[in-house]
């Protein structure tokens, strides 16, 4: 970034000389002694041709040279859209401190993330992976071992999160615990005078046609498992879940697939209740000023832990380590949660720096509330396929 001034001034010089020579050319034509039509003849054609050529050169210089000169290094991050890593201020701070440019690519489901890693090996550096999927991604050889010594803030992570068996086994770190949160549902607080405390409100006929759920088989089936009192990672009776989901279908107005869409539908009053993620709910409330209340019902909720991993054959491994270090830095996290809204940090130091009233400290820091949360674990492929099938069948009703 320090180079910026000198680069742009060199460019100004280049463009300046071009302009000068252009004008010199133009003034060579004696406007006063020659008849006007000569200017429209060959000289003008030549002048225009040169103008074209030179403006193209200047254009290319501006758009190709600058980024290359200013950022000699870049890292490519694969994440959900609007999920922390792509906050503009955060990327700007990182780039100005390290000189590394951050390029983002996004996914809308874990399957999409894995397909992107499988089909373009050696392209991504940092990838966000839900810890329930880290083992599978690692077993396919899509992510590589992380050197936690290179990450200064690693020692501040809550040991329970950092040593989560999905992320690290026997000191082999494949994912750095980043943030965690809860999947449950959120309601429009202008519709509900008394906030509901049960997940059954999704099935309440009073809200028929005012419910939305994410179009994701695993998520909706795990929530239904909670509603029917089953283990989310190994539901004992899928038939009960199917029956319960069939009853949910007429309640649903539409499905959502991204946070953007959730906020849009909510603003257009398309639903009053919708499944949601705790971090996104706090963003809807803080950054978008929507009357959203996130509910952890008495039946429980889905807990998840997101980790940051480094792709196999990442083009910039050291840049990836630096970026992960910045992502778990309390300085980044506190600003993210206060200004934008975030899930709870896996960095204990960062969480304790939040205001005492913050959702991530007041609710997720409350052992009684959190005791009901069932954390997502790895899942066999067969079970996942069965879930997909049930959800497709319910959607097709």
């Amino acid at each position: 970034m320090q180079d910026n001034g000198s680069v742009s001034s060199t460019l100004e010089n280049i463009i300046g000389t071009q302009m000068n020579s252009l004008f010199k050319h133009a003034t060579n034509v004696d406007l006063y002694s020659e008849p006007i039509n000569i200017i429209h003849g060959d000289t003008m054609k030549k002048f225009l041709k040169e103008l074209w050529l030179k403006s193209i050169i200047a254009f290319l210089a501006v758009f190709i040279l600058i980024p290359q000169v200013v950022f000699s290094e870049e890292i490519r991050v694969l994440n959900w859209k609007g999920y922390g890593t792509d906050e503009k201020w955060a990327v700007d701070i990182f780039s100005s401190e390290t000189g590394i440019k951050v390029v983002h690519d996004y996914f809308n489901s874990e399957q999409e993330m894995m397909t992107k890693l499988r089909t373009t090996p050696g392209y991504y550096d940092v990838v966000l992976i839900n810890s329930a999927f880290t083992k599978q991604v690692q077993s396919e050889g899509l992510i590589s071992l992380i050197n936690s010594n290179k990450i200064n803030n690693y020692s501040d992570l809550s040991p329970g999160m950092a040593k989560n068996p999905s992320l690290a086994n026997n000191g082999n770190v494949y994912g750095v615990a980043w943030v965690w949160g809860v999947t449950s549902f959120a309601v429009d607080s202008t519709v509900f005078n008394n906030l509901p405390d049960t997940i059954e409100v999704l099935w309440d006929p009073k809200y028929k046609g005012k419910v939305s759920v994410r179009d994701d088989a695993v998520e909706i089936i795990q929530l239904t498992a909670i509603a029917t009192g089953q283990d989310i990672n190994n539901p004992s009776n899928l038939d009960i879940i199917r029956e319960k989901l069939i009853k949910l279908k007429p309640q649903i107005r539409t499905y959502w697939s991204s946070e953007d869409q959730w906020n849009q539908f909510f603003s257009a009053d398309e639903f009053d209740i919708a499944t949601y993620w705790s971090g996104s709910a706090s963003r809807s409330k803080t950054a978008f000023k929507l009357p959203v209340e996130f509910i952890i019902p008495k039946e429980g909720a889905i807990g998840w832990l997101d980790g940051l991993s480094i792709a196999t054959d990442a083009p910039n491994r050291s840049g990836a380590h630096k970026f992960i270090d910045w992502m778990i830095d309390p300085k980044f996290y506190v600003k993210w949660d206060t200004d934008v809204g975030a899930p709870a940090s896996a960095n204990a130091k960062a969480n304790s720096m939040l205001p005492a009233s913050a959702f991530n400290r007041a609710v997720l820091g409350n052992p009684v509330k959190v005791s009901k949360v069932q954390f997502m674990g790895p899942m066999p492929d067969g079970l996942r396929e069965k879930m997909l099938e049930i959800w497709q069948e319910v959607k097709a009703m």
Partner: protein
Amino acid sequence: MHLILPKKIHISPPLFLTTPAYLWLTLTIFLPLTAMLFFSFLSEAPFGNRDPYLTLENYVSFFQKDFYQDLTWRSLRLGLEVTILCFLIGFPCALVLTRHTSNRWREALFILVILPFWSNALVRIFSWTMILRGKGIIELILNWMNPEYGSFSMMFSHPAILLGLVHSYLPYMILTCYVSLQAIDETLIEAARSLGAGRMMILWKLIIPLSFPGISAGTVLIFVPVVGSFMEPRILGGSEGTFIGTIIEDQFVKVFNWPLGAALSFIMLALVMVILLVAYSISKKWT
């Protein structure tokens, strides 16, 4: 024309001249389709450290699960509904364009018909969401006329899907009908009239049969893509918008079961071809 080629190879000029076109077709249509056909027999998409094997499972699952068949019927019905609506609106439009407008008006109206084609389909559908959704343009207008009206939303319903699809595909019907209506010899109609045929008689016995090629071309151009449509139902249909097209899209972009998506696509392709063949043979008998 005589072509000088190496002595042993004798290629007739027509074949020689059409070769580039066939090569192009092979490259752009046949090869990708063959790849997809191959995919449809695999157990999983061959990426990363996975070893897929050949299987018929994907095709079998279509016939085992009732909901795939339900969705197929629903998609075919949607295709039929949209095609009929497009005909009911598009044919009269084309008729008016050919028979009741003069040069300058015709040009202006033509531009209005073609104009939507100049914008991206996704943009068109998203602009419908602005109009149909709650707190959208219709709701604003209704409340402006009657402040007590309250909320209005047509989003996420079957009529919304029909509206979006008819709007997208109507120009095909108007243009194809226009072409064949224009070719009708005016003297034929005058002759019919002089023999005492009424307006309805002329329409039924003369104009519709003579413009049949245009109508059927429009029908095929609309029916086939609507049966496989996924973007319009997904955006405008919400929980009402699940069709075979959206399920196939899910297989490719959401759950990454490419083989199943490919198998479902080929089943739909076969079905649509059978329907078109049957329709073709019936219409041949009829005309």
